[in-house]
């Protein structure tokens, strides 16, 4: 369902953050992308929904070349791809509900969203999404009142509200403690298994990747170093990645 062909990303046209990477990910896979900082993990993930534009290569989602799409068509693609950030990026001053409803924006006309009108259907989805991440009692809380783990769960609920086919998560647990990290990863796992949503997740903790993902992709200096089943990932690779 997702295919990257010879993707190359460079921010200054000199150093290649991502260097000629090709990948194919099927429906319902849970892929962990690992690598040290600066290895190009974020750039790969961000190029999938074109937050970062590759200088070379092609990206296909359901066999549609998304780099050739017009702006409005690209937005239609983006609304089916959830993106979870390391630093949550919630609107601090708005309530949890407002933040989750933001996930419905891609489905709204400009006029309706300008006025802030959401349908009953939208509200139901938002409520359901919050129940799924176990935060239904915080629904009217201001989001800057929440803890880090709770904020990340709101961000996940937001992406669920998009009814996505793919969820991309850029180091979603990097600023959380060990048990909260596991808790968040559990939510991802459940979403992946129950809804058959494809998940690509950047992690710097190899153990977490081995524990939760079916497939591991390792990057080093923008190049693909390993791509295979989580069980096949050996400790030798580990050394090679981080040396």
């Amino acid at each position, binding site marked *: 369902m997702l295919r990257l062909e010879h993707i190359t990303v460079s921010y200054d046209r000199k150093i290649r953050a991502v260097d000629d990477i090709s990948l194919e990910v099927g429906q319902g896979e849970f892929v962990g992308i690992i690598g040290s900082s600066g290895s190009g993990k974020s750039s790969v993930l961000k190029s999938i929904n074109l937050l970062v534009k590759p200088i070379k290569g092609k990206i296909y989602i359901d066999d549609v070349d998304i780099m050739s799409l017009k702006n409005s068509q*690209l937005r239609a693609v983006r609304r089916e791809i959830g993106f979870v*950030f390391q*630093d949550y*990026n919630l609107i601090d001053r708005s309530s949890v509900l407002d933040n989750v409803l*933001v996930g419905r*924006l891609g489905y709204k006309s400009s006029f309706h*969203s300008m006025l802030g009108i959401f349908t009953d259907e939208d509200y139901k989805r938002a409520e359901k999404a919050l129940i799924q991440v176990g935060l239904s009692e915080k629904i009217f809380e201001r989001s800057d009142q929440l803890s880090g783990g709770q904020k990340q769960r709101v961000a996940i609920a*937001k992406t669920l509200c998009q009814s996505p086919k793919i969820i991309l998560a850029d180091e979603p647990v990097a600023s959380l403690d060990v048990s909260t990290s596991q808790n968040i990863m559990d939510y991802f796992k459940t979403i992946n298994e129950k809804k058959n949503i494809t998940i690509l997740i950047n992690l710097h903790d190899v153990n977490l990747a081995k524990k939760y993902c079916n497939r591991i992709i390792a990057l080093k200096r923008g190049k693909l170093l390993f791509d295979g089943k989580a069980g096949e990932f050996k400790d030798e690779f580990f050394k090679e990645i981080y040396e």
Partner: protein
Amino acid sequence: MNSLKKYMNNKRIYRYSYLLGIFIILIYLGYKVDFSFIRLYKGLPSMMDLIERVLKPNLLYSKEVIEKLIETIQMAIIASLMGLVLSLPFSLFTANNITPNKLLGSILNGLFSFLRTIPSLIWAALLVSIFSIGKFSGIIALGIIGFLMSLKLFREYIESIKENQLNSIRAIGASSIQVLRYCVLPYVFELSVSVFFIVLETNIRAAAILGLVGAGGIGQIMWKDLNHLRYDNVATIILILFLTILAIDLLSLFIRKHLNKKNIKFTDIKEHKRFQICKIIYMPMIFVVLLYIIFKSLDIDYTRLVLGIGQGMDIIRRMVKVDISYFPKMIEGIRESFFIAIFATIVGGAFSLIFSYLTAYNTSPKRTISLIFKGYINILRTFPPLITAIIFFRGVGPGPLAGAIALSIYTTGVLTKMYSEVLENTQRNIQDSIIVTGATRFQSYIHGLLPHTFPSFIGLLLYRLESNIRNSTILGVIGAGGVGTALTINITWRNWEKVGLLLIGVSIMIIIIDKLSQYLRKVFL
């Protein structure tokens, strides 16, 4: 062992030579602004006399004052609102992370930073000669200042929104309008209340002096009383002004502090939805009512307005044809303003280092001393320097000295307040780490807090320099030195070609100083 000693010695020599350098500069500047202890000493009796007379306010006069005061407050509030409302759409165009057109954004930014260099008093003086004497000119002048100030605050705030935050909305498939509505506006709306109060604090001070050029408000009667030597009346005005400004500052502080905590609690989703619909209905209504109030109180005479705009265009056309022959005069004035500003910044900086030690709770030897200084500092910084300059004017006569001292006092007040707050907000550990070695509180300030917070002090000092440069250009309006004297004379005589040259000169000086200060902040902080 020896090398260590040498190292420390060298460091000390460096430090002392820096201090010596600053001291020499200060003496030079003192010479340039005609500083003399003898003159100050000789002027002391007449200043004391003035203060003595000021201490006997004529309370019977308050009724008249209150009337004008209400007009002043009204002017400040309306102008701040007007500026705020206008600046909102512009901020979306000028913030470089969300602007739809980068080129348009930078053109607008250039234009606005040029306009921002013109002080409110000069705006008022210009507008008075366009639209005739009265509060309309004053409101427009303050409106312009309010607009430029809030625009800058909004723009900086929007630019500080993280790229990822914007991306998180874009990643959902939102259009750029939706990004504005759901990512930028929630921040900006909440910010707008504090921006309003920040602007109001500035505008109320400015409104108090606009009367000097005939732009309405309390300054008008103050100027009249000053010229008639009715110091008892002046005292009443100053006292009432002081209380008003203090009240507005406190109100502003209170509201801004409690704003962050407010949040409407909903019990179920239906209620939330109802609230959203109410918002759709009420927000435009509030907006329209605000606009109506603004227009109503502007009291616009349309034939006069059209005439004024015609005159304004004419004036601008003449200003653009700058009178180059006036160049030497301009340089002379600008140099004097520059010297006054630097002098005030250095003197204010030196005093505020000492005062901050006595003012901050955590360094002050006694809590009562700290409280006394806090009150004292607040008095110093409440008055616009122009009013303080009037007092010194009586003592030391016209010329740059009165302006330099007035501005030094104002700088001391503001800087002490800011820096003592920095000291109070510094982690306790910094101070404790010195105290645990058995040092005194004073030593913990000199060796711990001061070096630790010195970069922030320099930052604040540079901000003060930027503000002082602006203030020093208007001191001349009352004859206290600098380019302002030439500026007001030429505005009164309608020598627009000369005014044009002076304004450009002032702008260039201010922009250079701003850039320099930005650069220094980047290098040292």
